[in-house]
């Protein structure tokens, strides 16, 4: 019997409290699912250099604080996976182009590759990209926002992002229209649709 069968059986017998306690058990990831702990996985879309750039962008966007950050849950590998399986070849190429443009701009402005630049220079460059300041075009900015959306999506749908950084309620037990934010403590990660 797997965890979900347990939930179903418990739901029928005991209801919400028991069902919720089952959800907090360690996840039994399905074989195909992208695993946030698969750090050794080799990329299918990005070159090694581009993956390193992407990993650093993940780390700069959602860093480790008192909870792990996007790089720690392998968002860069998730994005490689997700672009390969869910996105069009045009979108895949746009993502690769963004990495190349970032590296090229870093060579021009910082006289070194993006991953070798210091963190302040890296952040300055990404901020220029978000503002579509030269040498970055509006198209590059827009394509970068797609990647940023994927970083955020990948992080907050990971187990750590969903359950440690935010509040995950698999079985809320009902709807309450007014509760103080302090009673919840953070935003909810769980949604019906993504």
């Amino acid at each position, binding site marked *: 019997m797997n965890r979900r069968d347990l939930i179903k059986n418990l739901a029928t017998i005991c209801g919400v409290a028991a069902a919720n306690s089952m959800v907090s058990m360690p996840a039994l990831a399905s074989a195909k699912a992208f695993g946030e702990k698969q750090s050794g996985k080799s990329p299918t879309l990005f070159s090694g250099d581009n993956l390193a750039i992407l990993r650093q962008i993940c780390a700069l966007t959602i860093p480790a604080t008192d909870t792990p950050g996007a790089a720690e849950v392998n968002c860069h590998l998730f994005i490689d996976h997700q672009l390969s399986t869910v996105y069009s070849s045009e979108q895949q190429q746009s993502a690769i182009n963004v990495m190349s443009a970032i590296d090229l701009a870093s060579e021009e402005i910082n006289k070194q590759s993006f991953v070798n630049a210091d963190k302040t220079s890296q952040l300055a460059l990404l901020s220029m990209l978000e503002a579509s300041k030269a040498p970055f075009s509006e198209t590059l900015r827009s394509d970068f926002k797609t990647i940023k959306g994927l970083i955020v999506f990948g992080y907050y749908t990971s187990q750590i992002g*969903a359950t440690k950084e935010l509040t995950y309620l698999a079985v809320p037990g009902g709807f309450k229209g007014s509760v103080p934010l302090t009673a919840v403590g953070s935003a909810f990660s769980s949604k*019906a649709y993504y």
Partner: protein
Amino acid sequence: MNKETYIEESSETYDAIVIGSGITGGWAAKELTEKGFKTLIIERGRIVEHRKDYISEGKPPWEYANRTKVDKELVDEQFAIQKQCYAFHDGTKQFFGNDKDYPYTTKTGTEFSWIRANQLGGKSLLWHRQSYRMSPFDFEANKLDGHGNDWPIRYNDLAPWYEYVEKFVGISGTSENLPQLPDSVFQPPFEMTKPEKDFAAKMADAEPDKPVIISRCAHLTKPEKVHVDLGRMQCMARNECQKGCSFGAYFSTQSATLPAAAKTGNLFIAPNSVVESLIYDDTTNRVKGVRVIDNDTLKQREYFGKIVFLCASTLGSTQIMLNSTSKTFPKGIANSSGVLGQYLMDHNYNALVTASIDGYEQEYYTGRRPASLYVPNFHYEPSRYHEKFKRGFALAGSASREDWQSMGTRDGFGASFKNMLHNPGKWGIGLQAQGEMLPRQDNQVTLHSSKKDKWGIPQLHINCQWSENENLMMQSALEVASSMMEKAGFHNIQKRILGQPPGLAIHEVGTARMGRDPKDSVLNGFNQSHDVPNLFVTDGASFCSTGVGNPSLTFMAMTARAVDYAVKEVKSGRL
């Protein structure tokens, strides 16, 4: 379900055959079996067992191959139409039809998105569960403004049947005593959030003809014995209903009508049986059975029954009737009028207005509410029509706090960015129109002259478009919703026309309409064929107009009423 319930070959003549097992077919089967009729449900799709076959229920996003998104090659190959439905994702795709298997054509220059759910339970597993009675005005609209034919029934004919089905289904909501939106028998309502409550209070003063109420939905908030006896429980506010619900908290065939029918011992189900046509006996002028093609083996077989309830969905039922030709009915069974296939309607959801709400920073909520805000139609009779269009619309939406899904592409990096997403964002509100579509003869389905599906059944050819009336109505809905938001003091009001083709409200109705006159309608006021007395069509095909509300509750009430009538006719010897 017991194994004995499922049959494959049978030479028996059943008391009744029900084609389809969605909301309508489930109700027909429940009512017929409870009245002692040995009943066979014919379902084109596979068996879906309650609980056991809800394969993605409770699955957190990180366990999906692509975090709930569907592989693009699979989408392109099999779900090009179905993906347009808001509820389509990796956890629900098993309940959507495979577009490759269910081809249809549309007239050049027109679009229609036909959402399919071909399995035991049909769309009752996928529906949005919002449940409203049609009003006395809805049943009179065609007669009063001259669009479409007059409904052969009035609200009072259906009112006791609404009450009857509501007690069994469980509809949460509030009694409002509004003329245009009759109250149901209610389970306790879902709560509003604080900004929603304040919005409703402000509108009660500023726009007294546009009350803001909580929507009415088929969720148990306080189960009663009739529900508990079927294994149904209180809604947990997961709002992941379309994956299936083991709590049985929302009404579906699986959670409610099927177990009730099975309890009688009179229920039999023939799954994987694609109905090709109805078998018509011209010596008796009756449908004597149903010709089906096996879903998997493509072998043909037949089932026989004394009466037939066609509940295969609006377009599914119509396709079967059009394909059931005989010497008597060369244009499709029960189609002496020639209107079969005509007057296709859907609801128009194309107007969306959103805004931001200041304040309420310490206010939050828990749970994912399956209900919304609802502003009932205020153009509900000709004297209240807008000068530029006929009929009206409702508004539905909700106020909630922004989160990573809407804020995730904002500028910024690092701990401050992460911290911004750690907390819920500003409150926002959205209101979307649900507009009535006029019945128009031009909007119709026919059988394609040459193209067939893999079962050898002619494909449906759909010609359906919004008219100027619907487009003007959506423009007005934008103004109404934005004006309400302005009066409420909301900011950043954004108006959008979504441009969706008909079909995506998944409220398709018409195409085998009721009527008083057999010359311009297919069914009488009891959903009975004018031409072939033992044939009943009780799904949305029977509608003469859409009304404004979501139609499923009316399918249920009409079906229960039609069964009551049919059984009386059989027992009296008239049928």
